[in-house]
């Protein structure tokens, strides 16, 4: 390590300190300042943090093997020693760049989007806090520290989903959405905790380098224990990255402000699960069963969510299900050992999905100032239409994002998705078929969305009076659009810039050659899907009160997709739902069982609570009876154990 590199690594703590300082400044003085200043401070903090991330990147360019930066001891218990150690290697720096780079743009955008909201200071405090936690997550050099970040981002997500806690269904809808996200996430967290426990039990350490070095020696390939550990890690990843069966929280999470949806629920936090698996790739390599499970879960999530997205009317819910679906692509990729492809898609997806969410936010923002404020109407694509003329910039960037997501060459999404498909072609045909179908559905629902929102005539008063958003919002959109166009250049077939770069951390050797058949099939299917969308929505633009033509074409399937395969209702109503509806779902009985079990759990807890509450009678005589019963019980336990 030369002196200059060392110097640059010395700046590493600033990565956290800037957002931390930003949030402290806002907490301390938020009440006294003019509101927009909070946004400016938070954005500068994020921007400075991005600069630090770039410094780390430059340092790594000089010697890409990475380093571990230790800032002090944290936990020293028995044989366990967990320092405040941070891993600066090609994988973590890539994540840092994505988090801080996209984060900065979204902070800037949020200045405009949240302008005038009374809680704007609180909003930026949470956003900066999120950055700190997310950076901790991606740069930790051991599992416990990663877990701190993991919990931190979960907490921020909870706080931000419920940001407008007083809105939503019945006045508590948003708060409930937040709680749902939190609880579902905790189920996943439990998996992560137990995995850490097992690792420590077996290896006596939780530092990444040591764990990976010892794991290969301690665990034979496919031994039950390593399978258990990796499956528990998978559970954790499934919770954070919204995979089957834990994906139900993400669509509801759209109750948060749109910049939050873009930053946390599309570009960064939800990819933490992918990062976790990629980081633990050494462990997964030892458990082929788990790898197959990972790729199958990813692929089926990709397909399931894509079908649901085709039949949504809420502009943000389409994107939410699309995010779940794309996360499924990434999970499938890393499950097949195509880590570079997965991370590559993670990056390009961060570009174009952040773009799409922010552009959707721009649409909502434009409509909001048209007079309406009911969020349901504001986000209903049936009430939009004809926004192309009224919001030209938003339209242009949205189109870019949509094409990138649909996988039309030469936009970013084409290259990354193609790598995943090519990997699947080699590894597992079932996965390949599911992913290809999902890609087809993706191109279709994006086409449908663009036509419904921007083309044709305005279908409501609100849409007529819509107007373009201010520059503070459109400029980040333009930058993201540019990235969505050229992002594919990161890992061009044959050049593999990203592949070589990540290879320093993830191991060299996996550089997929370009598969012309796969690429051509994917492109043709995407074009076909866009054509189909044009045929349905473009030839005869939807009238003001017309129903979606897809309703007749798909019949009951449309209802199925529209209702999200009823996964949510199953969780809501359990087995109370009429059997006619359930019959359509029975083909996917595993989900039904999951939903039933969860419902039963909630029931049991509620029933148990109710029964227990009755035992707290407040009657003195009854309380004394408790003591006598306790005496008998304990005596029996001692006597007969």
């Amino acid at each position, binding site marked *: 390590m030369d002196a200059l590199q060392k110097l640059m690594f010395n700046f590493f703590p600033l990565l956290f300190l800037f957002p931390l300082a930003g949030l402290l400044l806002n907490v301390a003085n938020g009440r006294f300042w003019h509101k927009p200043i909070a946004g400016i401070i938070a954005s500068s903090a994020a921007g400075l943090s991005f600069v630090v991330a770039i410094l780390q990147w430059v340092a790594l360019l000089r010697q890409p093997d990475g380093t571990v930066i230790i800032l002090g001891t*944290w*936990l*020293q218990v028995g044989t366990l020693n967990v320092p405040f150690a941070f891993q600066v290697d090609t994988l973590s720096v890539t994540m840092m760049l994505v988090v801080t780079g996209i984060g900065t743009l979204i902070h800037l955008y949020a200045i405009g989007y949240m302008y005038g909201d009374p809680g704007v200071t609180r909003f930026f405090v949470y956003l900066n806090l999120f950055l700190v936690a997310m950076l901790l997550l991606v740069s930790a050099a051991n599992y416990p520290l990663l877990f701190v970040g993991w*919990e931190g981002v979960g907490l921020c997500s909870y706080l931000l989903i419920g940001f407008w806690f007083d809105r939503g269904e019945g006045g508590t809808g948003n708060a409930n959405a937040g*709680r749902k996200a939190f609880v579902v996430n905790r189920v996943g967290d439990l998996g992560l905790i137990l995995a850490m426990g097992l690792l420590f039990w077996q290896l006596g350490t939780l530092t990444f380098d040591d764990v990976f070095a010892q794991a290969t020696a301690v665990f034979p390939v496919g031994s039950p224990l390593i399978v258990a550990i990796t499956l528990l890690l998978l559970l954790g990843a499934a919770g954070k990255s919204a995979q089957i069966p834990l994906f139900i929280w993400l669509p509801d999470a759209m109750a948060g402000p749109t910049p939050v949806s873009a930053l946390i629920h599309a570009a960064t936090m939800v990819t933490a699960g992918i990062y976790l698996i990629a980081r633990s790739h050494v462990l997964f390599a030892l458990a082929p069963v788990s790898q197959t499970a990972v790729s199958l879960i990813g692929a089926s999530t990709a397909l399931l969510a894509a079908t649901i997205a085709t039949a949504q009317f809420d502009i943000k819910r389409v994107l939410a299900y699309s995010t779940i679906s794309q996360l499924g692509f990434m999970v499938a990729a890393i499950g097949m050992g195509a880590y570079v492809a997965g991370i590559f898609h993670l990056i390009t997806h961060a570009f174009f999905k952040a773009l799409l969410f922010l552009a959707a936010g721009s649409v909502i923002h434009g409509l909001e100032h048209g007079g309406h404020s009911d969020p349901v109407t504001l986000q209903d694509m049936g009430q939009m239409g004809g926004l192309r003329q009224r919001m030209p910039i938003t339209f242009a960037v949205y189109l870019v994002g949509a094409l990138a997501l649909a996988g039309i060459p030469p936009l970013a999404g084409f290259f990354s998705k193609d790598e995943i498909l090519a990997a699947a072609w080699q590894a597992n045909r079932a996965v390949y078929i599911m992913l290809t179908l999902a890609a087809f559905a993706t191109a279709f629902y994006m086409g449908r969305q663009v036509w419904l929102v921007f083309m044709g005539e305005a279908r409501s008063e609100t849409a007529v009076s819509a107007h373009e958003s201010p520059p503070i919002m459109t400029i980040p959109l333009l930058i993201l659009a540019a990235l969505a166009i050229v992002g594919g250049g990161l890992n061009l077939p044959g050049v593999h810039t990203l592949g070589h770069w990540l290879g320093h951390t993830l191991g060299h050797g996996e550089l997929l050659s370009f598969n012309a058949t796969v690429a051509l099939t994917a492109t043709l299917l995407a074009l076909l899907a866009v054509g189909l969308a044009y045929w349905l929505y473009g030839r005869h633009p939807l009238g003001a009160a017309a129903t979606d033509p897809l309703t007749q074409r798909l019949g009951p399937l449309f209802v199925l997709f529209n209702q999200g395969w009823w996964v949510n209702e199953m969780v809501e109503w359990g087995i109370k739902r009429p059997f006619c509806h359930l019959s359509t779902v029975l083909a996917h009985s595993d989900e039904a069982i999951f939903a039933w079990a969860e419902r039963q759990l909630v029931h049991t807890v509620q029933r148990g609570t109710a029964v227990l509450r009755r035992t707290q009678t407040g009657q003195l005589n009854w309380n004394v009876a408790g003591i006598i019963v*306790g005496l008998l019980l304990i005596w029996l336990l*001692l*006597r007969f154990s």
Partner: protein
Amino acid sequence: MVIPAFIWLIWLPLLGAPLVYLVGRLLSGWLARWTALLLLLAAWLPFAATWQAFARHETVAYSLGQVTLQVDGVSLLITAVILTLTPLIVLYSAHTLDGADGSEKYNAMLLAMGGSMIGLSCATDLFNLWLWFEATAVTSYLLVVFYHQQPASLEAGVKYLVQSVVGSVLVLFGVALVLAQSGTLSLTALRQQATPSPLLLAACALFAVGFGVKIALVPLHTWLPDAHAQAPSGISALLSGIVIETGLVALLRAMAALTAVTHTWGLLLLMLGAVNMLVGNLLALPQTQVKRLLAFSSISHIGYMLTGLGIAVTSGEVLGAQGGFFHLLTHGLMKGLAFLAAGALLYGLHTAVNDHTPLTIAELSGSGWRYPLVAVALTLALLGLGGIPPLAGFMSKWQILLAGMGSQQPVLMGFVAFAALNSVLSLAYYAPMVQMVFRREMSAVVQNGRSLPLTMNLPILLLALAIVTIGLWPGLVTRLTQGAGTALLSVIGNQ
């Protein structure tokens, strides 16, 4: 004979109590408060001396006739928590007491309670254990019903008194059985002499139940939510933070002496712990009053401590005892802070405007903007209790989890997995409270809330800092928890 320094740990507060009462009665409440505070701070001096002697592996003991008091790692840990919390609570209560009749009794009782708890932790025979236990209990009854004008306080006090007395009589009966069977009450002698017999087994059960009433083992817990919710907030902090924990220490001492009688008592602790965690959490879920919710959460936290200690007793894993005692310490600070913060809000929103209804969770809405310091402190305490890293509560739960995993016994791993699950469950009631505090809309009471005096804010700030510090550098208290853990294991290790 040289009187060792540590005896002043007990004498300072115990002799100080009547002094404080007299000063308050004859001179002024203000002076009494400062006397109490000074005495408690002065007690840190003998603590430091004791600590040093202990670190040099000297036997720190004092005999008066046949009664011997001896310091070990557990006593040091308990004393440290008492000496941290009590002065902060004297300070905290200063403002609320002004004008209340009987304020001089309050501080005197606080001192007496602190002194008797320290005495309890140093007792070396069963009867003294009971006696100190009883002294602690009597002072705590009086503190719980401090607001004797309030019917709810009286109700809580009556239930607490009756159940607690039943418990203590059962302990005494157990003492009698032990005496009848083995002819000695000294813990060390018992450890060597006791052999399995039905009478001693019955004594074990009586100890478990008798002390169990104080620790609020389910189903002996019914008094706790009433007493801890109705007591003055400073007292709630002490009751939840340390008083029930001293009951746990008493139980450990008594059971450890009779280890030869029943080798499975570790398993008993684990099972009781599991039930406590579950029932406490389930009962906390539907609560609408802040302090009552916190009280139920104490029941579940006792469960975590029992889990850690149970692991240690069952497997001889020192990490488990260390984790259990660590959780005792962090829970004392966190729950103390939670009650102080909730009490400060209760004061600002209700009591200060002469409203004596309990504080509900809904009324917390928006309080974060009116009382930022208290709200942040409450948040830290709640998230810490819920086990969110990197706060102190996570560290101690984590240590218990590690101990369970490290024991490599499937049963123990099952118990810690259950504890982790319960920790998840508990967030279902902590998190909404945090959310409520930082809502944008202020509830009606928050809008009319009074400002809080410095004497309330300062202890809250100090405790919050302590929690964050311990969370980031748990190593700071490792020597205390390690000492306590080793002390427990050395007692039961030679079975």
